[in-house]
């Protein structure tokens, strides 16, 4: 009786999910199966066209690499911040949390433009480098893979820090005392106790950052410029500018499928490492 009641409560959510997630996805899948832009006949031509072309495969690989890079970078910078958070008193925690959330209060377009201003030819970094005499010519920072990586990582950073904070905060402090009492130093305690126990947070953060970074349309386009191409802009271009909906839909499905593969891989990796901790 009890479980049945619960099941009924899930119905609105399930209906919402079917109506607004499953059905539109089915539609995109359907469109992707037309053979040409005029949508006359059906077939898997679009997928063959995409995957058979090294130019397209390169775009896919660069998009995935950019997203994975953002995961690594946001972990490297996010972990110390999240760890610092657990060491602070309540009052300071509040201030730090506000600082972490602050970027999320402005739109990603604004944050992206901030990076354009920082990395531009006459931007902050070049002004400083030129002023200090480190370089003679302005460096080309904007419109590079590195620029996209740094900007996307910073913009998605809160997605990494927040799950990490909750995961680090849940670690029983007696475990740390026990580790110390058993003779482990600070680093050993961190590597053997804290890090493994924070894996669920790292995992959740990695998933969120990866999915967001792979589809960071605005930042990829504005910081990457017209000579770099990522999957989200490719979808927009083919659908809206080239009016080739079937090809655009197939790019969308391929992006979705590869992101899912990576997500499952991260999940499996996490489950293994958790098994290692507890086993």
């Amino acid at each position: 009786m009890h479980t049945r009641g619960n099941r009924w409560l899930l119905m609105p959510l399930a209906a919402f999910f079917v109506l607004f997630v499953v059905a539109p996805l089915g539609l995109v899948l359907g469109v992707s199966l037309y053979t040409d832009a005029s949508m006359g006949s059906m077939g898997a031509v679009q997928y063959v066209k995409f995957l058979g072309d090294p130019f397209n495969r390169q775009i896919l690989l660069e998009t995935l690499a950019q997203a994975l890079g953002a995961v690594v970078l946001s972990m490297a910078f996010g972990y110390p911040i999240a760890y610092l958070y657990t060491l602070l008193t309540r009052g300071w925690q509040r201030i730090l949390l506000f600082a972490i959330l602050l970027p999320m209060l402005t739109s990603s377009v604004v944050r992206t433009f901030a990076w354009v201003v920082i990395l531009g030819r006459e931007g902050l970094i070049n002004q400083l480098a030129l002023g200090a005499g480190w370089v003679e010519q302005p460096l080309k920072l904007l419109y590079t893979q590195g620029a996209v990586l740094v900007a996307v990582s910073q913009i998605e950073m809160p997605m990494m820090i927040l799950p990490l904070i909750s995961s680090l905060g849940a670690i029983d402090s007696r475990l740390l005392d026990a580790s110390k009492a058993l003779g482990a130093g600070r680093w050993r305690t961190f590597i053997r106790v804290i890090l493994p126990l924070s894996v669920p947070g790292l995992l959740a953060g990695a998933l969120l950052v990866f999915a967001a970074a792979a589809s960071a349309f605005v930042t990829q386009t504005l910081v990457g410029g017209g000579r770099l191409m990522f999957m989200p802009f490719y979808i927009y271009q083919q659908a809206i500018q080239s009016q080739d909906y079937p090809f655009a839909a197939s790019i969308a499905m391929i992006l979705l499928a590869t992101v899912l593969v990576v997500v499952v891989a991260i999940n499996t990796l996490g489950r293994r490492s958790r098994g290692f901790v507890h086993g």
Partner: protein
Amino acid sequence: MKMQRRNILKALGAAGAAGLATGIPGLSLAQEKTLAATTFPGAWEESHRAILLPAFRKATGVQANLVASLAVDTVAKINASRAAPPFDVVLLDEGPYLATRSEGIYEKMPFDKIPNLKDLPEKFIDPTGQGAFVSAQIYGIAYNTERIKTAPTSWNDMLKPEFKGRIGLVSMGSTLGSAWMAELARINGGSEENMEPAFEFIKKVLPNVGAVAANPGVLATLFQQGQIDFSVHYINNIEALRAKGVPVALARPDSNWGLVRSTMHIVKNTKSPDLAAAYINEALSLEVQQKMSEAPYFVAPTNKNAKFTGALAAIAKDMSELEAFRQTDWIKLNPRRAEYIDRFNREVKV
């Protein structure tokens, strides 16, 4: 459901018209209370808000809801919701309009409700009656006046080694990009149907290219940030930058100025066809077009009574000169646009 709503609205409108009978044109159809219109981002949006919207309000008593949207995006949005379109009247570029002209998404204009059409040269009215040219954009050589002391005179100047890393391109996916590439093809022996010479030019200029912009708006910020010194651009973006103190100017290419025309259309299945007609009528009026053609907007007029003044007068003295500027044959270009966009992707990608 929809039928019902329409019937109720009709009944209400009839009752209103009978009761009010104000005599003010546009107000006689009281059921039409809202109008959603699109414009382009930048000078168009600013000038439409400052000039067209107040004029439309004065004529109809209705405050139009203006949405900035690029032509290709607008067409996609209408196509996605044909039965209940999100806009009543839309501003498009010639290219995207002609590509969708036969798709049945535009209403034939009621000529009797747009009296200002009589002030338009005949070739500025679409032969199918589905729209009218409301304005034009002039494009030429945009350059940074501080770093480039003598104005470039030809597109071929982009190939000079002194401009290494200083040239800006705009993506083939934009109207400006398509029009300019077609122009490059034409002056190098090609045409809208043979863009090979244009792609050859891109190949040659690529070592000098500092950035490729996705659209004209981004191209303008590239000048502002000192990222590029030389590119193709529209007069109103360049004049807007100049007004902000950015050292830029527009020069005439020896192959002549380029012209891109914009069109306005009543969307099929609109709930406010009369307001949409009134909106187009205002957009074509001498007062609105005259003001929009002056500083700081410089949107070229299509009303034959409009006078060319200021920066616009320096480029063309009247309509006949404007019409002689380099134009794009979109009918020929459109069918191959997707292919050209793909080719452009491959040429510029690092």
